[in-house]
């Protein structure tokens, strides 16, 4: 752009509202994230499942199409809580991959390059900084999880009628809260791990391992002692239990009964995990660390 002023002077225009400043962070982050063709491709692909499920819903209500495809209505997967549970499981897996790709870079890059003092010397608090960073993931993951989930729900309600909507309104809650809890878990874990590990690749590995390693270890302990309580250290199982609870399902994965935690333990475990991640973030996300 043409530059006319080569002198120093104060800014005399209108400033943006204070509350909106944190939104600057995700706006700039998206520019960087979507520069990667790999990520853009993956993000587009993540809409494949909602599209297929929308087609399934459509087929349920289109006799002509079913006749043309020679499929009986009973052969189609019923549109119920299990249908939406499968949708959230698939989309949650995609969300996990996206979080592993972009989550750890959000904070670790700033910490590695000492950029935090530059953010925090401005009228931006630590909370707003983290909210800005978290909203990068929250918005992207929402776009591929609960937003299409609720659109599918609305689509089904539109085709099935108001009676179905009224009877199944709790399903909308289940879709939203299960996806949102998963997004919050991924966001907090990826930010906290990257704040402590700082090296982006290692932080991505740690995020991946934080789900795989506890799952493997707790499965062994559960099998040995035939008690589910070690599963409270397994984030995947906590989400599994809570999501099943929200979808009013007892055991969607058909696991052995001694593996399944009670729903309250799942909720409690998740809350403790969230609190731990927040504590990790508050310890590390500072302009400067004080070494006693």
């Amino acid at each position, binding site marked *: 752009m043409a530059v*006319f002023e080569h002198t120093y002077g104060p800014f005399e*225009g209108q400033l943006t509202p204070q509350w909106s400043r944190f939104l600057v962070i995700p706006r700039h982050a998206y520019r960087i994230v979507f520069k990667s063709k790999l990520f853009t491709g993956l993000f587009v692909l993540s809409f494949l499942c909602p599209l297929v499920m929308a087609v399934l819903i459509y087929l349920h209500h289109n006799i002509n199409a079913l006749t043309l495809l020679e499929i009986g209505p009973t052969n189609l997967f019923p549109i119920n809580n299990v249908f939406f549970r499968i949708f959230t499981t698939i989309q949650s897996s995609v969300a996990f991959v996206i979080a592993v790709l972009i989550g750890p870079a959000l904070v670790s*890059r700033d910490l590695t390059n*000492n950029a935090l003092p530059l953010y*925090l010397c401005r*009228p931006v608090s630590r909370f707003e900084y983290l909210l800005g960073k978290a909203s990068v993931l929250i918005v992207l993951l929402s776009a591929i999880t609960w937003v299409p989930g609720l659109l599918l729900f609305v689509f089904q309600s539109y085709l099935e009628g108001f009676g179905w909507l009224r009877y199944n309104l709790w399903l909308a809650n289940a879709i939203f809260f299960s996806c949102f809890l998963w997004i919050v878990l991924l966001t907090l874990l990826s930010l906290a791990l990257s704040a402590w590990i700082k090296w982006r690749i290692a932080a991505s590995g740690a995020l991946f391992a934080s789900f795989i390693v506890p799952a493997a270890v707790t499965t062994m302990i559960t099998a040995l002692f035939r008690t589910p309580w070690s599963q409270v250290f397994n984030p995947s199982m906590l989400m599994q239990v809570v999501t099943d609870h929200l979808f009013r399902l007892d055991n969607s994965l058909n696991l052995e009964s001694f593996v399944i935690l009670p729903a309250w333990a799942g909720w409690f475990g998740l809350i403790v995990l969230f609190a731990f991640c927040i504590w990790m973030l508050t310890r590390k996300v500072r302009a400067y660390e004080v070494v006693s």
Partner: protein
Amino acid sequence: MASVIELDNLRVTFGKRNILKDLTGALSGRAIGLLGPNGAGKTTLIHTLLGFYKPSKGTARIFDVDIQKHPKLVRSQIGYMPERDSFIADVTCVHFVRLMAELSGLPPGAALERAHEALFYVGLGEARYRKLGTYSLGMKQLAKLAQAIVHGPKLIFLDEPTNGLDPPARKRMLELIREIKESGHSTVVLSSHLLRDVEECCDEILILKDGEIAAQCDLEEERKANRKFLELETRGATESFEQAIAGLGCEYAVTGNQRMKLILQDDVNISDLYKIAAERQVQIRRLNFKRDSLEDIFLKAME
């Protein structure tokens, strides 16, 4: 003149250690030099004023706004150039400065325009589309200065801005600081342990030592004062010689082996010094009139 920074019994404690010890004072210069040896508390003071550390006692005010009660309001008036390398990797310099401007509250369009202007102003105009990771140390320092001034703050903290710069780059940096000061739009606080940098740019100094204020003075006033400074080189000077000098009412500082600097009072003549020296069998080998330099003020404060 209204105070820019007021320190009100400011104490900062890390663990059990007091880093800043009940600092009290007011600074009102257009360019304030923050001096002190390493570990004196200069950077801690800046960080506390920016709200990075919470005072354990007392407070401070910047442009009459309490740093603890209204931290965001204070920070909205400040630009900060940190001592260490601080940048966002994998972005161009203009993107980086624009992001910083937007975080300070500038609308996106104005932020982009000001980012370009600030980069031209500091001399990075031709390199503004390069990624920060590819910059040399001197260029990174200039980029840090650009992000500190992009939003046109009323107060700019510069923490060791000439660190690691070669002589031409250092000269350029000091010129920029002087220009900013002389523009009249901003007050500059320059923290450095390089006395020459501070002497070239500042009109007021605050010297810290072990977390306490060791000296505070208006350099302009000091420069204007028509005081007679003497530099003595002696042989055989004893403590009684120093005491006798003090007895004449002269302020003095021992600057090295057998060397001392003193301020001659109006009623004291050079012959009085020779007389004292002769009485104590001290040889005055050299005697120079000398203007008081920042180094003298600093050394005296460090005693």
